């Protein structure tokens, strides 16, 4: 009896799938999203418009999308991984050609009913193609140079296109997310050591090339790095965001200033308070208790995913879950580091909390994949 047969016979069908859904995970996601609704309600000055209500609708839409994806067998998703990957590459090309420019970067495609950010889709597509690749690859070949170059190319191709937009945050997410899948697949440690070394070299190169005609990054990106390294150097200019965000966060104290009592956000000192900097409002109004609680919710999501990945005997499923979990982790870790002044302002939203349509939908769909892997995992009779 082949593994596949063994697998197929144990796969739940029909309504039984509902029983196998990881309901704890659904609950956690809803909890996190609810924190988002609350904060969007607060930053709007105690109003469901303009942010909280659309966000709720999108979350419901996201839940629906998640369940649809979840009930489709995981091997279907494995089979369409390559299609998804190519499709996302095409979208990136399309955004390059027809995209809308926002905040100094070309990132959006107007689909008519919503604004789509193709780089969001790419993050998941890359994880999918890599998981599928390692599922296909013989285990003993995993660390062979040729077979390491292939996934590397799969990661770097969209990364390069995203950097072109330019979207530093997504590029970072793609590389680290893809790298996580490779790591989980068992690629030899030495390769990662090499990448770290190259990365260090690259950072040096980025700084060394500054001011020369062939500089790697755009000026505003350099400035962001500058202000990250020393926010006080330009308190009212580029450093304003970081300074104000730290003030808001720090002034929250242990238990915060109370719901809707945050002076920093209510008086508009906080930039982008409903998107990238929404965590500062939470930290200001609910203090350490609130901020830490959200972090715990995120941590539980990650732990549930990792637990699910470890228990899953299917390689594709495990790698996919790990990849998505890591990407999710990177989202909130980068965002929080940014608002706490630990990382430069790179424009990464707080997942499921920040106001934004495509990020929410794509993330919910990705958790649909996690659920699908969970539902359709190989079981013994």
């Amino acid at each position, binding site marked *: 009896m*082949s*593994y*596949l047969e063994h697998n197929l016979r144990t796969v739940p069908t029909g309504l039984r799938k509902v029983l196998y859904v990881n309901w704890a995970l659904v609950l956690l996601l809803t909890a996190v999203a609810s924190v988002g609704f609350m904060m969007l309600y607060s930053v709007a000055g105690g109003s469901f418009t303009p942010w909280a209500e659309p966000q709720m609708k999108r979350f419901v839409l996201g839940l629906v999308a998640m369940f649809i994806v979840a009930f489709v067998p995981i091997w279907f998703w494995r089979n369409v991984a390559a299609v998804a990957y190519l499709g996302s590459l095409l979208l990136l090309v399309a955004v390059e050609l027809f995209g809308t420019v926002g905040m100094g970067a070309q990132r959006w495609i107007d689909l008519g009913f919503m604004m789509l950010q193709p780089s969001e889709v790419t993050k998941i597509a890359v994880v999918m193609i890599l998981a599928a690749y390692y599922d296909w690859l*013989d*285990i003993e070949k995993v660390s062979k140079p040729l077979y390491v170059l292939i996934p590397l190319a799969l990661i770097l191709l969209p990364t390069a296109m995203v950097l072109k937009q330019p979207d530093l945050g997504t590029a970072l997410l793609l590389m680290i997310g893809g790298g*996580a899948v490779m*790591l*989980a*697949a*068992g690629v030899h440690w030495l390769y990662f050591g090499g990448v770290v070394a190259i990365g260090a070299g690259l950072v040096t190169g980025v700084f060394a090339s500054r001011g020369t005609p062939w500089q790697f990054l755009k000026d505003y990106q350099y400035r962001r790095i500058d202000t990250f390294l020393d926010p006080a150097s330009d308190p009212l200019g580029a450093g304003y965001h970081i300074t*104000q965000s*730290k*003030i*808001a*966060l*720090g*002034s*929250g*104290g*242990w238990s915060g200033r109370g719901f809707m009592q945050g*002076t*920093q956000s209510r*008086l*508009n*000192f906080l930039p982008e308070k409903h998107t990238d900097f929404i965590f500062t409002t939470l*930290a*200001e109004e609910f*203090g*350490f208790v609130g*901020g*830490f609680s959200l*972090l715990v919710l*995120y*941590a539980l999501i*990650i*732990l549930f995913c*990792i637990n699910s*990945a*470890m228990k899953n*005997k299917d*390689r594709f499923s*495990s*790698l996919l879950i*790990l990849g998505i*979990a*890591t990407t999710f*982790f990177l989202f909130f*870790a980068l965002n*929080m*580091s940014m608002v*706490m002044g*630990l990382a430069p302002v790179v424009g990464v939203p707080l997942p499921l909390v920040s106001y934004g349509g495509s990020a929410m939908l794509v993330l919910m769909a990705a958790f649909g994949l996690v659920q699908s892997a969970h539902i359709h995992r190989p079981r013994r009779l």
Partner: protein
Amino acid sequence: MKQTPRDIEESNRRISRRALFLGGAQVALMSVLALRMRYMQVEQADQFRLLAEENRINMRLIPPTRGLIFDRNGRVIAGNEQNYRVVLVREDVTDVDETLAAIARLVALGPDEVARAKTEIMRRSPFVPVTVAERLTWQQVAEIAVNAPALPGVTPEVGLSRHYPMEGDFAHVVGYVGPVSDYDLSKLEDPDPVLQIPRFQIGKNGVETKLEHDLRGKAGTKRIEVNAVGRVIRELDRIPGQEGTDIQLTVDAGLQNFMQARMEGESAGAVVVDVQNGDILGIASAPSFDPNKFVRGISVSDYRELTENIYRPLANKTVQGTYPPGSTFKMVTALAALEAGVISPEETVWCPGHFETAGRRFHCWKRGGHGHVNLNYSLQQSCDVYYYEVARRAGIEKMAEVARRLGLGERHDLPMSAVAGGLIPDKAWKRENRGEEWLVGDTLNAAIGQGFVLTSPMQLAVMTARLASGKAVSPRLIKSIDGIEQDIGEIPDLDINPTFLDYVRRGMFNVSNNKRGTAYSSRVDDDALILAGKTGTSQVRNITAAERARGVFRNSDLPWERRDHALFVCFAPYDKPRVAVSVIVEHGGGGSTAAAPIARDITLRALHDDLPPLTAYPAYQRNQIEERFQDLDLRSFEENVTGRSRA
């Protein structure tokens, strides 16, 4: 599917190990985030809380209400008037141009004012109220209020603004206020932050500037919550400031008004001093100007009119102007001679009409001479030769010493702008300033108040007060600050032999009351109010030999600016002196004709506290005096006793 179950087992174990590693790494990083959060929100919370408060809370100053200035009877000289204005908030206005045009129609704004308002509106943030029109009448405010629905973003407001109800009467004394200039700020080492308030007004002249510290008060503060772009969200609390201190002057507004009106049409100055305590009861300089124009911001044409007027309305002739005192200085010379013991009161000097010394001839004003002249007669007749002779005997040092004792050459400590010290020359002064030795001729010139001698009407009034009272009174302008009477202390004795003073006073009595006195026509015909004075006519030109030969003496033949200054000093009543008065009429001609009548009217007004009764004047003059009084443009004070106006 070449993978064997064993391979799969192995692969799964490897994935699990790596998954554990990944999960561990992520949890570790999350711990870092949690620690950082804890550090910022627990350890550094106070610091960040403070920064957040600084962010949101703005301190705004509340301008203090400026202290009022009253006259000695409690009449308001400088008050605060409600100032109705129209302000516009750009963000609430649909079309700025259209709205401004509408306002201009309602309150009659000129194109310049509209343009100025437009510029300011566009320069400020859209939520900042900008004053479009000021000092509106109640009628105009009502027009705006009625049309309010058609004028969104336009609101009438009321504030306080300095107002001088006495208009020109106290312009030189009290001065005026104006907006703080950069120059004002640059002069101050540690400027009061209140000065940074736009349109805040400070004293620019006179008492307003000298007592600025008392009048200004202390600014209050209010703490307001602002958002990131500075818009005021709400007021948190306010600490009231301290209102400016009220100041009472020694001046009597009624007398002051009379003086100003009496001197109208002349370029003149007059001072009335209480002989017992030095209180300045009246201090007027004519012509005057309306200080309210300066508060509002005087127009270029109005200002040019003031500066180009040859009567110099902006100059304060009473303390700032110094003139040769002419014959009013003769009391000083006489006292110097008496004190030096070089002449006795009854000793006579022969006046042939001129005096020869060192090969130069000094003339008496009376060409034919006065014959035998004693002290009393010399004052009565103002004989120059008598004073040439006694001055020659007494010497300049003695004269200067007596002059200073009488308050001449001394810069009196008065809270007015540009108080002049005048000049009492002596040998050392001439050596230092002219590099020349003192000549006898200089002494002779000084003897009749010419030459180097310069005095202000203020100093002459003080001199007369000291002669009258025998006390070294000092002039005082501030009666009380914040209701606390200013201490004048013990008035020292003048330290001049009372007998000598009596001789001089008797001479002054004769000037006004002897039929042959130079000011007999300006006598007082009321025994209770007898006036004793001294005329003075000071030359502003040298009489050339050619002129003397041609006999050009008549002032009316000369252009105005070359005519003599007319002076008169007096005190009254003679037997129990109360007031001392000095008057100068610039280029007025003779002291007896131009200055003495004015001085008499002012003296009587000061003693009577109302229009002088006609019975005080010689019978033949009464019709003329009555007519003159009827022509005076006097202020009615009934409606003017206003209290403190507060917004």
